[in-house]
């Protein structure tokens, strides 16, 4: 990419992430990228395309094929003063690194009683809609949201991807950066002059008055689509992109529910013990008297992600979201 990072430009999320990583590496010589196939190939999604040629093999490291090794050595590199950004190739392949993430990365600052910071970013392409084989379409964010010591974010647009990856790298805490891979290719406008919001902030992206829809990552575009359809039928829907899964910025969510009185939370991840469940419970605690209906969840089913030919049934679409909207409005 030859574009100067000024003004605005329309580009896909994969390119925006590439630009954000480049900017972070230009701004801070301690930023390193590490992962499988991220060098000459540019990653299986080409997010790191051209970066090794620009910054060299020491700063853009093709690692051995070992996720625990990637995370574990990234921890050591961070102890040595670097800011490693690890790419996990696919959501379902993060689990060999789960131990290092949860027992070490998440806890080392606490174990050191604040005398060690671990600015490690773990990029995780996640979610369905790409017709892939087993382990390539999952949404494992709840495992990590449950772990104290980690921060979790997920952009839904190229603009947010460009800024949030830089903000994640600048964070002195470990950040799990979930990239909705079905949104890698659709284009959107990136404003290179301003992020417009802090990393851990919820954003209302469509104003409405009768019901609030909330989600993150690829689900956000489904919610906007549902809101569009509902508008044609005369229902005014507010849509919220939470952007940060841990911590969650609740103030805009509560304010929205106080206005609309109804909330549907949607995610690709299974609903049992999920981020969606957490939000439903918290909103019920904090906005009980504003609610005109129970908070409803529309999620992936509590079954393994199915073979690709069934993914459109498994993943919530606008129709399933609107079915929940109808139920909520019926109260």
């Amino acid at each position, binding site marked *: 990419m030859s574009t100067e990072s000024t003004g605005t430009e329309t580009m896909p999320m994969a390119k925006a992430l590439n630009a954000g990583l480049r900017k972070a590496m230009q701004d801070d010589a301690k930023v390193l990228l590490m992962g499988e196939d991220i060098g000459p190939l540019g990653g299986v999604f080409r997010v790191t395309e051209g970066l090794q040629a620009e910054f060299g093999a020491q700063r853009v490291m093709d690692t051995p094929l070992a996720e625990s090794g990637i995370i*574990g050595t990234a921890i050591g590199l961070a102890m040595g003063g670097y800011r490693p950004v690890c790419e996990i190739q696919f959501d379902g392949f993060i689990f060999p690194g789960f131990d*290092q993430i949860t027992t070490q990365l998440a806890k080392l600052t606490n174990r*050191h009683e604040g005398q*060690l910071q671990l600015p490690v970013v773990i990029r995780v392409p996640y979610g369905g809609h790409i017709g892939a084989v087993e382990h390539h379409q999952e949404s494992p964010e709840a495992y990590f949201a449950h772990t104290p010591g980690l921060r979790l974010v997920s952009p839904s647009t190229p603009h947010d991807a460009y800024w949030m990856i830089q903000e994640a790298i600048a964070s002195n*805490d470990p950040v799990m950066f979930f990239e909705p891979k079905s949104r890698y290719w659709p284009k959107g406008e990136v404003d290179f002059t301003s992020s417009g919001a802090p990393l851990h902030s919820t954003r209302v992206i469509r104003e409405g008055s009768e019901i609030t829809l909330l989600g993150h990552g690829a689900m956000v575009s489904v919610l906007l689509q549902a809101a569009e359809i509902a508008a044609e039928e005369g229902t005014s829907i507010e849509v919220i992109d939470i952007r940060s899964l841990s911590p969650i910025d609740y103030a805009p969510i509560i304010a929205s529910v106080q206005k609309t009185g109804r909330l549907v939370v949607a995610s690709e991840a299974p609903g049992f013990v999920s981020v969606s469940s957490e939000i439903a419970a918290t909103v019920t605690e904090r906005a009980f008297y504003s609610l005109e209906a129970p908070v409803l969840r529309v999620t992936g089913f509590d079954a393994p992600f199915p073979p690709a030919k069934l993914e459109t049934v498994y993943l919530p679409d606008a129709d399933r979201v609107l079915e929940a909207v109808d139920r909520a409005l019926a109260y």
Partner: protein
Amino acid sequence: MSYTAATVQLLSPEGTIVESDASAEYLPLIEALSDEQLREFHRQMVVIRKFDNEATNLQRQGQLGLWVPSLGQEAAQVGSAYASKPQDHIFPAYREHAIARIRGVDPLNIIKLLRGTTHGGWNPAEHNNFHLYTLVIGSHTLHATGVAMAMTLDGTTGTGHPETDGAVLTYFGDGATSQGDVSEAFVFAASYQAPVLFFLQNNHWAISVPVATQSRTPLYLRSEGFGIPGIQIDGNDVLASYAVTFANLETIRAGGGPRLIEALTYRMGAHTSSDDPTKYRLDSDVEYWRQRDPISRFETYLRSRGEGDAFFADLEVEAADFAEDIRKRTLTLETPPTGKIFDHVYSEPHPVIDSQKQWLADYEASFGGDA
């Protein structure tokens, strides 16, 4: 698994210097040591054994939740620790009490960990880069490898200046060699030629499981397949531990890539205070290794060099005083304030942590008096 023809031994169990083809390379390093350095080896081994015994007693008396004895492994630890340099980083497992003390950590901080007042205990940056104990077996070998990779990136190793070039030394046991993380550490260390020395204390037991269950080949051969030269030493020989570690660290510092040392030793005590070794091992095995004790052989050696009774008598007093001091200070360790639960979960403000900390403070205050 006991000594073989390949085992490097400089000091026999009888306390005499071993002249052999294998030892010839290392004996000059021993000859270069001063009497004071040799006394220091002995002093550290004796003091830490006394400390270890005191901590075991404190646990039995209910003052510690758990204790992890180092009994029998003093030579492997003391010799290798003295071979390191201040700029080196050391990643221990959780039994490396002697190394901690040599690198400047007050052993009371180890007591804190096992009394339950901290998960850490010291700041590695202020204690000669002696990192925190890691309880998940083998996980830290990857952190050690990462720090070594950082040294390479920084250009603080392999420059041809042995006084300033760095290396990383990481300790783990025979059980840990079965962990995937240790194999992954070998892979990464070899791929990036990271300046890391893998120091394997083969104490023959992973709690109750014998080393034969972990490996059917000698463990020093394990790393060869990863492209990391390995060497086996008599881990109860403080001179071999010192000299072979020193030589390997020099090779690593000079850019020679990672190395592995397997130190054959024996866990004379239990795995931890919760263990019962009488259920799974023979007294005769323990007796076999008692005959190869690291401290008694080194005392014999020092006496053969002319060290008199006074040194050993004074050392007994010093060790006893040290243990007594640890006991006194252990009894003064207090439960941390409850707010510590929330401290340093993150290094930057976090709303959930902040609100829960406040909630707990309010809840405790609601009972009145000093919460």
